[in-house]
């Protein structure tokens, strides 16, 4: 079976090409489509297994990052999206895509848990490598990633700080096993808000989340930017690794997404 991946490009999206390249490397049948075309014909989603919202600055990040696309998505083709998920599809959001899915309410997928993404504490666009710990015991990534697995993936965003409305909302995220990734320090302990290991001041060091139905996943770090070993920042010091291994940690995440469909 060939996994069919649809990558949605909106005005301001800038990671569609490399995300498509990564999925094509994984032998997926990958298409890039504009958001305006998608909302004209929402049934298009049924021709695909995975819907990906890549990174960028959709609609110029006006109003709030991801807000315009997220709200329009639900207003225009919300029912198709729900059918797509019910039919076994998976939605993934990377960086701006994560912001879109949170604004759309697809993550966490229930009104009972109230979260938002807001401006980084540093008030800067944070473009740096981060270290993540895979946290979930049961997510679409669990087929390939073991709980506690450490990955190196870069971030590049200005509004990546996950906040919850109350501490109870955070408790619900933890209790329902919705946290996919947390930022950690090089020794593998949680960053506990410490900069730069937690690059944005995210609550509980949250870097990625899933929805309650475990079929929508979102993360601020960019797996497609850590796909090949030659994309790693220290590849010149680790040339042996580059010769030996073609793929880096981002590959593991995207492969896990594919495995979820193939399982």
């Amino acid at each position, binding site marked *: 079976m060939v996994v069919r991946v649809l990558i949605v490009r909106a005005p301001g999206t800038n990671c569609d090409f490399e995300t498509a390249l990564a999925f094509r490397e994984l032998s997926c049948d990958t298409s890039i489509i504009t958001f305006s075309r998608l909302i004209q014909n929402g049934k298009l989603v049924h021709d695909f297994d995975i819907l990906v919202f890549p990174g960028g600055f959709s609609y110029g990040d006006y109003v*709030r990052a991801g*807000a315009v696309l997220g*709200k329009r998505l639900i207003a225009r083709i919300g029912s198709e999206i729900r059918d797509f998920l019910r039919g076994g599809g998976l939605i993934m959001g990377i960086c701006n895509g994560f912001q879109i899915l949170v604004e759309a309410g697809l993550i966490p997928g229930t009104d009972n848990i109230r979260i938002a993404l807001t*401006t*980084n504490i*540093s008030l800067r666009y944070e473009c740096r490598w981060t270290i993540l710990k895979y946290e979930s015991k049961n997510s679409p990534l669990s087929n390939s990633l073991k709980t506690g697995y450490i990955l190196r993936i870069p971030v590049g965003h200005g509004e990546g700080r996950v906040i919850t*409305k109350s501490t109870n909302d955070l408790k619900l995220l933890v209790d329902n096993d919705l946290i996919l990734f947390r930022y950690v320090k090089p020794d593998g302990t949680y960053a506990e808000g410490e900069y730069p290991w937690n690059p944005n001041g995210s609550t509980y060091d949250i870097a990625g989340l899933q929805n309650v139905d475990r079929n929508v996943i979102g993360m601020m770090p960019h797996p497609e930017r850590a796909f090949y070993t030659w994309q790693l920042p220290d590849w010149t010091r680790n040339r042996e690794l580059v010769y030996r291994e073609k793929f880096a940690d981002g590959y593991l995440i995207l492969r896990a997404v594919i495995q979820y469909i193939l399982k």
Partner: protein
Amino acid sequence: MRYIVRVEIRLRKDLHDPEGAVALSCLQDLGLRQIRSVRSGKVYYLEVETNSKEEAFKIADEACRRLLANPVKDEYSIEIVSET
């Protein structure tokens, strides 16, 4: 009737506002030491065509709830500025 409605969106008071904090430190550098705190916000002006002030207010409120403000992190206020 056409109403101009001013909508102001602010980060909730209990949340850290990096933009306000940076502005405050800069203003203190500029010698304006009397300023004790700065909170940032965003203002939208909506031109609403409807029958009454109350209705215009209601529509603006819906606009805030559904798009302009994020209830998790924002608070907002609505003011009818003018009617023609």
